[in-house]
């Protein structure tokens, strides 16, 4: 009993301790010329949808809610963001070759259509990021239009 109590206290100290481990936050206020919404001239409603549902992990600027700043939550998030940006970064979309723009667009559309993105664990916590059927229809229509024009 006494030992257990000591261990619990130790663990609490560790939990408090890891809060002080420096974490790199994915934030930037720079609006790049290569930004997806900029090069394709996205209307405001599409812009808002992308920003709320996609940009947290697929851009250089994550909107961190307070709970995501508590460890180990922030580490989980960091992992997702790194993976997400590696796969697709909306801020630098203009840097992709024409071939890759097409294939990225194809993937974006099919991920949204099949409810693969935004991923379930993220949408569970960020309720506003979840795309409704109307949102999905609107955004895929707009994306498909860009894709047609790229051909």
């Amino acid at each position, binding site marked *: 009993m006494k030992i257990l109590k000591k*261990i619990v206290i130790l663990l609490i100290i560790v939990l408090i301790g890891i809060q002080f481990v420096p974490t790199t936050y994915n934030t930037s206020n720079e609006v790049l010329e290569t930004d997806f919404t900029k090069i394709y001239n996205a209307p405001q409603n599409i812009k808002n949808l992308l920003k709320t549902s996609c940009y947290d992990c697929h851009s250089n600027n994550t909107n961190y809610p307070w709970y995501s700043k508590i460890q180990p939550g922030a580490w989980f998030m960091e992992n997702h963001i790194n993976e997400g940006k590696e796969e697709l970064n909306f801020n630098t979309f203009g840097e992709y070759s*024409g*071939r890759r723009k097409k294939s990225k667009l194809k993937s974006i559309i099919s991920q949204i259509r099949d409810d693969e993105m935004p991923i379930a664990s993220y949408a569970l916590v960020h309720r506003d990021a979840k795309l409704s059927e109307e949102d999905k229809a609107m955004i895929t229509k707009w994306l498909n239009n860009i894709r047609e024009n790229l051909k």
Partner: protein
Amino acid sequence: MKNLKTTFSILLFTVLISTVSSCKNDAKKADTDGEMQTMEMNKEGMDHDNSDGHHDNDGEEAEMSHDNSDGHHDNDNAASTDRDIAASTQKNGATSEIIDSYLQIKNALVADDKDGAAKGGSMMLMAFSNFDMSQLNEAQHKEYMEIYESAKEQAEHIVKSPIDHQREHFETMSTDVNDLITLLGTDKTLYLDYCPMKKVNWLSETKDIKNPFYGSKMMTCGNMKKQIN
């Protein structure tokens, strides 16, 4: 006592997970670094291979550069899919390993074989890292790199995805490999087939139609557009 135990295990679990996840991050970074190093080493290896004149396509390479000088291989991506393949296909064995891996994926998808397709994806990554880029001229190199980047991405996804995703990435990959053949040629006899439902082309080594996009569900759907070689 019981309560304390539960609290204790929850806390322990949390700390363990956070440790694991931070380790995973580091391991990943290390992985990427390693990969990049290997790539660089491969490049060096290729240059070396080449300097001893082992490459047996010298004649064709000359022909290819000639084609290029009259502007046949401009870098217009948008037009690349519509190029007349039969007219521009050179005999080139250098692309064989890449095409073989593509056909492995194609045949696995025809057979609804997810693991076989994943294996083909790894084969393709290997084939690209074995490819001798030093034989390419500047214009070819630029287009080759674009095709390579895209095909590599598709192959990586085919390695790790369920079969319906594999098939989606195979659509893009088919365009990539087809464009690669247009750019560099092949010494294989291939057939360019068209899937009217997906509105995409795919390549096959056999004359009869075996559609890889739906597997057994729609095996004979499609038609042959062109014979290559």
